[in-house]
């Protein structure tokens, strides 16, 4: 039986510079709760982010953190997982970072199935740069860079993930932190790539998709007779948006090999495990040898 940790161990002292009421606060809290519920300690988790408001999240947690450049957390996370499969790797980034500039990496992660969890803080806007429309902004959105309304069809991450072969696809709402924490925990426990798209209001620059806007539309798949292993059903639900937005696990398939399982060079163990006997404390000379290889 796993003994739950105190989520407070993940608290950090850095000043949080998110706007008051930002949905990112709920993502931060839910991630701490999920790690605590799974009894994953600080040194056992790595949070990888890109660039954006939500990507400041690793600064606000006491956990291994790695802020990469815009759109690139997924390849970095994949590399970390290959080097050290025992690390719980969680990617946290926004809709612009993940579905815009990071879109290629997103598609590749879906089909490669690395054992990492990605939490996308989807606020349908570029917030840090003060209000440009993003890939998930609804068509017609009026923003600083679309004064006459966006002319682009909004990116559908649920459908793209499903078509790309993702093995765990879920959607959550920042206004429901308990449900969000449960989905993050389920994603971390899933063996393979897990996407959790979090509908997360930007209280400063997106005045359309507010907490109330989502409240009127979201519903839980688990309240209906929904089978998350049914790919056809998932495809249909992935296209629900305007009037009803499904929350929960949209699609899940287990038992498939991860990317790391199939890399032949890792058959004798990961690079980290070959350098260290992880069952014992690593000796200082092993650390020195590792550093020499990189510097």
């Amino acid at each position, binding site marked *: 039986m796993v003994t739950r940790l105190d989520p407070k161990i993940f608290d950090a002292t850095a*000043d949080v*510079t998110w*706007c*008051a*009421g*930002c*949905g990112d*606060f*709920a993502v931060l*809290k*839910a991630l701490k*709760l999920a790690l605590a519920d799974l009894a994953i300690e600080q040194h056992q988790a790595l949070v990888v982010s890109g660039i954006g408001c939500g990507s400041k999240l690793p600064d606000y947690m006491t956990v291994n953190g790695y802020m990469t450049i815009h759109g690139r957390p997924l390849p970095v996370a994949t590399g970390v997982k290959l080097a050290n499969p025992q690390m719980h790797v969680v990617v946290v980034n926004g809709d612009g970072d993940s579905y815009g500039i990071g879109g290629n990496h997103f598609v590749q992660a879906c089909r490669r199935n690395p054992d990492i969890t990605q939490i996308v803080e989807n606020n349908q806007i570029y917030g840090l740069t*003060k209000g440009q429309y993003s890939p998930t902004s609804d068509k017609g959105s009026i923003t600083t860079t679309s004064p006459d309304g966006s002319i682009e069809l909004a990116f559908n991450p649920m459908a793209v993930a499903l078509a790309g072969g993702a093995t765990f696809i879920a959607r959550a*709402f*920042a*206004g*429901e*932190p*308990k*449900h969000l*924490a449960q989905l993050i925990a389920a994603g971390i426990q899933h063996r393979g790539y897990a996407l959790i798209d979090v509908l997360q*209001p930007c*209280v*400063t620059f997106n*005045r359309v998709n*507010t*907490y*109330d806007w*989502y*409240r009127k539309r*979201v519903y839980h798949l688990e309240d209906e007779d929904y089978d998350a292993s049914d790919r056809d059903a998932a495809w249909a639900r992935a296209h629900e948006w305007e009037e009803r937005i499904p929350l929960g696990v949209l699609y899940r398939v287990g038992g498939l090999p991860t990317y790391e399982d199939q890399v032949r060079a890792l058959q004798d163990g990961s690079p980290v495990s070959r350098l260290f006997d992880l069952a014992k404390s690593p000796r200082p000379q092993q650390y020195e040898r590792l550093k020499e290889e990189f510097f």
Partner: protein
Amino acid sequence: MNYQEFLGKVQRLGGFPGGEEARATVANVLMAVAEVLPQDQLNALALKLPPELLVYLRRTRPEPDPYFDSQLFLGWVVSGLDATGARDKSDGGLDLYATYSGDEAIRRCQCVFAVLKSLLEPGENRAMAGGLPDGVDAWFLQA
């Protein structure tokens, strides 16, 4: 107290130039309150409010979320007010186009809380404060 009196009081307390800001503030604060109060307290509050305001006492899920905190509460309120331009406090004033609505959102919450408190008995006020998230209870009691 009827609906117009309720809005008028909030408008005067907040110093809002127009009634629309008062209406938006009341709506957003009540929607946030509805997300956190236990059902029995919500029912008790509904009995004291003008009927026009009952439409805002609906929450996303049947039960309040135990992890709904003061930041989430503020999020509902901030969504309904114009962002306040101000010097960026985090960078020591280097960003001239920073926005910060937190202080104003708390002030507006307290305008609505003050009117709500005037409708409730002292015991009901204490009970309502007990149902609010940490931090929000203090805003309520100090309103």
